[in-house]
């Protein structure tokens, strides 16, 4: 069966919230909502899962910490197969833990650097914002002052239209297939 799309356009984010709630209560699939700004409380209404960004931050931080420790171990501590031993102010350079206090800032910075940058990159990739990515919004007005709810339907078109018309919808556009 051929899938069809409806674009419903709204002026106010509160209307979007209530209409999405009504539609999902009737088990009508809401594909996507396009909005100029984040709408508070839309995520649970749309049934989106909570972000796992915090977990990635922890993992990236751990990677950064490990990297920082290995880096400073290679650079500063003498031994076979390692970098030139550094003698700074006569501090011991044979063991890692004797010098640990002076290594903490480097390890800390590496943790922050890795967590910050890798999180940003993860965020961009998860949102498919690769270099050269183009807009996915079907209507440029959603970057200004309009809110667009995208619905897919198979055969219950009249129900959907009737439901939408009961709300404060300003425009209903029908599109063929995906």
């Amino acid at each position: 069966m051929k899938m069809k799309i409806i674009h419903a356009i709204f002026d106010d984010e509160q209307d979007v919230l209530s209409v999405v709630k009504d539609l999902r209560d009737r088990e009508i699939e809401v594909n996507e909502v396009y909005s100029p700004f984040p709408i508070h409380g839309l995520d649970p209404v749309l049934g989106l899962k909570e972000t796992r960004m915090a977990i990635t931050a922890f993992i990236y931080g751990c990677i950064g910490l490990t990297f920082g420790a290995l880096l400073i171990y290679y650079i500063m501590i003498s031994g076979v197969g390692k970098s030139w031993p550094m003698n700074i102010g006569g501090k011991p350079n044979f063991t890692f833990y004797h010098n640990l206090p002076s290594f903490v800032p480097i390890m800390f910075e590496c943790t922050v650097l890795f967590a910050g940058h890798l999180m940003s990159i993860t965020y961009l990739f998860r949102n498919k914002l690769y270099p050269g990515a183009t807009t996915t919004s079907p209507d440029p007005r959603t970057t200004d002052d309009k809110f667009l709810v995208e619905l897919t339907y198979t055969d219950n078109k009249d129900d959907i239209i009737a439901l939408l018309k009961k709300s404060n919808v300003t425009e209903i556009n029908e599109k063929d297939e995906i």
Partner: protein
Amino acid sequence: MNKTTNMYITNRSVSIASLVMILIGLFSVCIAFITDPHAAWTNLLFNNYFFLGISLFAVFFVALQYVAEAGWSTILKRVPEAIMTFLPYTSIVMLFIVVTAVLHFGGNHIYHWLEPGIMTEGSANYDKIIAGKEPYLNATFFLIRSFIYVIIWVYCARRLRQISLEGDLEGDIGEKSYWKGLRVSGWFIVLFAVTSSTAAWDWIMSIDTHWFSTLFGWYIFSEWAVIGFASILLMTLLLNKQGYLRHLNDSHIHDLGKWLFAFSIVWTYMWFSQFMLIWYANIPEEVIYHMERIELDNYRFLSWFSLAINFIIPALFLMSRDAKRNKNRLIFVCIVVLIGHWINSYLLFAPGTLHDHGHLGILEIGLGIGFLGLFIKVVLTSLSKRDIELKHHPFLEESKHLHT
């Protein structure tokens, strides 16, 4: 459980328990002064410092909410307001210690630089370095400063509580008392910025007279912040468990949990910043401070132990969002952090006054319990006098519907 009344009703068993705790404290302090007055003064000073920090930070917290025009904390504002009624008690004990130190009354030799002859050239115990600090570290100025701090803090604490109680009678949204409170808070924050640092130098840093750290004021402030937030959060959660503070939701405790988490890390950051520079430069008169704490057998374990639990427990246990919304976990972390900082408070004083014959023993714990009992008694009494939730406040509705 929902209570229809908005008043805190003092619990009989809690009252009896707090009285028993006060008696334990009095008993310990008597034993301490009979057996070893020198150790007893340190004991009294550090326990008092710990509770002074908690009650003083509660004033700062209330002032901060006014100045930032923050709405989230309004429903639990009576909790820090009750805690700050303990400030006069700790202030009096502090002034008592300061005055007796100046008079050398009862074997109070906490402040080495107050010893007679230490600043007179030719005297047997003349110390050139300490003599050079005379313009700041002299008995008269020390007394004047101590009194100024206490007067400012206690005045602002009383005024802020009074204004908040006026708001309950004002009606409407309590705008008038809010603006009054904002003005007092502004002054308090400005004065606190200076006095918190100088009080830390005078009362704590001057014990290790030769040693100084430019970071010390902030180090002490961060410790006050941790114990202050831990106490506010712990009291809020315990009251909520008994059915009070009906409007408290996950977002409020999440916000307080964030503060606790953040300031635990700030404290560790300060601790480490101070430690690393001294360790790296390795100048004898600076490293003595950490040598006394890390190299002496009676403090070594306590130093590392308190550092570890004050950092690792809050950092790991409160890292995720869900953890900061979990009441039992927050209660656990608050208690651990309070114990950890209590030990650390001991380490701020004891190595400087008692050197290698100080140890954290039963008398210190006994007096700590006594202070805790008095704290519970005073705070719960002032909590029970007025409504536990504010009636009229510009941000009351916002706070009731806090959602993050």
